[in-house]
């Protein structure tokens, strides 16, 4: 099976007043389906830029002189790359902004829906003046209004008798999703299955209450005008433009669907381990603690069942005890959803906890990729080795810093970017950039030391 996401020789340069800042210099990385890939590196190594490039969220002074980001057989960065190739040195941020705006339009069906991102600082990635339920609801409303419409419709159509049957089916199959979906489709109730399943899967309530809650799904009060509009949305899969043009209609659609979004938000938050979600969805971000905010941001990222979730430093802003909660949560959701994850962090120990594979970045390049255990126990690249030996442990083993500093990305050293700090550097390292050399089992290392003699 092909990779969920393939990054080929990606370069990102920032045009600044003080020169060309080469943030990424040829990154090669593949994200396999269903895996959790960690990206580690020190600050300034380009790990966040990589995440932003995949999401096409780069600022206007960023050019992409080369490389591809391939998702679902499409290249996500072809427009800015073509622009950079066309103008070469005469790069103009204003023109680039126009290109990026076109990219933004092309990305609407992908960004937030098929690839979503969790940002580092949960306080700044949530809107402080909107209740968090709204923010979750909006994410679904924008990308998949039909889902919300189906949910309302199915509830308005469901009769108590049908729901009783559905409950019996749930008990008989122990909550089998496929048979439930079949049942819903047969009875024209598509959309009810996920609501029923959510109630069924809750561990904290008694079965008699589950039964009552599932029965209560019937007869959502929807008036005839609303019903008509929602039916159209559910059928066509999007909000028809003629509705968007008429203020009254668009307001009705919005009101009904956002209200449904709150309901979905409650389900999402409950499944992420938040008690009293019905109270939490009405709160504003400042009322929540750091750990809760991070859960909300994760809920928004997962709201549309994305194929890829990029988490940029998901635990850097929280305390260790809360970090442990979040890591536990990430481990749990990766088994319950079918997405592939990219986790970006400066803390190797955090990545070791959740990742299948880890990529180490240095000065805008991936220097080593390998399965987690392998890279931690037998690191090949000198940088990885030194990085691991610099981490203080509880046993207070002597730690060694890496001499020197991270290179200035405006003047990256010729050859291997690590050679000025590398204890094993030899002539070739000063001249030629190392290529990715396969080593052993599923390990890639960009270091001339491992070139076959």
């Amino acid at each position, binding site marked *: 099976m092909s990779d969920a996401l393939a990054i080929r020789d990606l370069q990102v340069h920032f045009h600044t007043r003080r020169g060309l800042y080469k943030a990424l210099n040829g990154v090669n990385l593949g994200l396999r389906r269903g895996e959790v890939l960690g990206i580690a590196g020190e600050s300034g190594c380009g790990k966040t830029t990589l995440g932003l490039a995949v999401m096409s969220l780069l600022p206007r002074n960023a050019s992409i002189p080369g490389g591809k980001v391939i998702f679902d057989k499409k290249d996500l960065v072809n427009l800015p790359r073509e622009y950079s190739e066309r103008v070469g040195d005469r790069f103009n941020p204003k023109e680039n902004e126009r290109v990026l705006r076109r990219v933004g339009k092309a990305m609407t069906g992908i960004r937030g829906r098929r690839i979503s991102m969790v940002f580092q600082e949960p306080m700044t990635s949530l809107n402080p003046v909107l209740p968090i339920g709204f923010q979750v609801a909006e994410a679904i409303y924008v990308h998949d209004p039909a889902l919300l419409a189906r949910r309302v419709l199915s509830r308005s159509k469901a009769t108590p008798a049908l729901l009783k049957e559905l409950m019996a089916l749930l008990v008989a199959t122990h909550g089998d999703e496929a048979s439930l979906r079949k049942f819903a489709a047969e009875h024209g109730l598509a959309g009810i299955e996920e609501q029923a399943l959510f109630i069924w899967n809750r561990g904290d309530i008694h079965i008699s209450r589950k039964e009552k809650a599932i029965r209560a799904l019937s007869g959502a009060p929807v008036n005839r005008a609303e019903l008509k509009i929602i039916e159209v949305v559910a059928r066509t899969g999007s909000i028809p433009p003629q509705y968007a043009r008429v203020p009254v209609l668009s307001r009705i659609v919005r009101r009904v669907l956002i209200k449904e979004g709150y309901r979905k938000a409650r389900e999402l938050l409950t499944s992420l381990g938040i008690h009293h979600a019905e109270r939490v969805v009405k709160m504003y971000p400042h009322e929540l603690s750091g750990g809760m905010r991070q859960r909300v941001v994760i809920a928004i990222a997962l709201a549309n069942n994305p194929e890829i979730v990029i988490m940029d430093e998901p635990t850097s802003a929280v305390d260790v005890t809360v970090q442990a909660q979040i890591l536990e949560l990430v481990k749990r959701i990766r088994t319950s959803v079918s997405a592939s994850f990219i986790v970006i962090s400066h803390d190797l120990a955090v990545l070791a906890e959740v990742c299948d594979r880890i990529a180490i970045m240095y000065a805008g390049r991936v220097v080593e990729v390998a399965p987690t255990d392998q890279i931690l126990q037998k690191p090949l690249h000198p940088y990885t080795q030194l990085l691991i030996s610099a*981490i203080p442990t*509880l046993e207070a083993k002597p730690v060694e810093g890496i001499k020197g500093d991270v290179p200035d990305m405006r003047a990256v050293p010729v050859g291997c970017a690590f050679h000025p700090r590398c204890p094993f550097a030899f002539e070739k390292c000063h001249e030629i950039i190392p290529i990715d050399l396969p080593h052993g089992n599923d390990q890639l290392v960009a270091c001339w030391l491992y070139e076959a003699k």
Partner: protein
Amino acid sequence: MIAAYGLSKFFPIRGAFRSTTSLKAVDDVGLKIQNEQVVGLVGESGSGKSTVGRCLIRLLKPTEGEILFDIPDSELVEYEKARAEDATKRVDAIADRFSLLRRSSSELRSLRRLANIVFQDPYSSLNPRMRLADIITEPMLSTRFCTRAEAEIRARELLREVGLPEFFEDRYPHELSGGQRQRVAIARAISTNPKLLILDEPTSALDVSVQAQILNLLRGLQEKYGISMLLITHNIAVVAYLAEYVYVMYAGKIMEWGEKGKVLRDPQHPYTKALMSSVPVIGETMTRTILRGDPPNLVSPPIACRFHPRCPVAFEVCGWSAEEVAEDLEYLLAGKYYEGFGDAVSVIAEGERTITIQGTTDAERIRELVGLENEEVRSLKSVEAIDVSDGSTVVRLHEPVEPEMYPAPDGRQVKCLLFRPDVSPPTGNA
């Protein structure tokens, strides 16, 4: 070297109608650093560890408590004895000579020579308009440690001492990397030959490879000059690397202190246990104690033990309030034990110690539920009695007990009721 007793710092918060409440950032903290000792103070953000550091060198004036600085051991023993006996006169006599809180500001200025601080963020702790030489000489001049000419020579020596070339003296902070800046901050802090150095998160703004350099620098300086250090950090591995003794803080209180090896390798307090098990370690998969919830709000902290709402082994007297128990009880009655109670039940907290459950008189079943769930939902441990009166069920709770520092057999001290010497610990272990 320095000892603090009953140190508290409350920050006033002015609310509506001019009512003043306070945020109890540090509450009754005792701490001691001996000569040439490195002491670690760990805790999560908001636990008050930085406030303690700032109070110790009088950057903040503590609300309550006593700080004795540069006190000989014999006098300290004397003071502690007098304090234990409540001999006010003797306590005052010693405190008058050594207390930092009884110094005038001019006396403090000369004392500042002896204690200095390194701040967390080297990007904001260095004045961007001063040359490095000026930054480093400033404390020497302001405390009249030496003349300007001597100070400038010393500044160059110090730059070399912290591993920077001498020609950096004419540079400005913006020309340096984060690690180099932190070296300058350290050079400034040791410029007056202090006996005590407070390190407030010295490496948390740095990358690991640079962090390791700074840690080794600090260790070298400590060995060379025998400076006492208080290392304030949330990074337990950093404490493990440098410190001899560790204090663990949570929500403004010290939870446990003792020798590093004992506290970190074999933690006793339930919070320390959870904290240590939360630290991800490379190449180790262990069963974690995942705490529920978040650290408390310190404007209205939990009563008695501040850790009890998150504690996996909390028991009867840890400080459960009626509200906390009512919330958990309601959650159970409306969820897992819905059958038999239905929607008519409502749980109301009345006062501190009683809860009324309206809509049911089935005390037997509630008793059974409490018995079944109290291992999982710890707040139910505090239920003392369940009776029926006036058509509703009344739940009474145990009286809470404020925990103190209790000595453990191996020399450390733990602030947890499980370690009360007079009571045998109840069942359950984290």
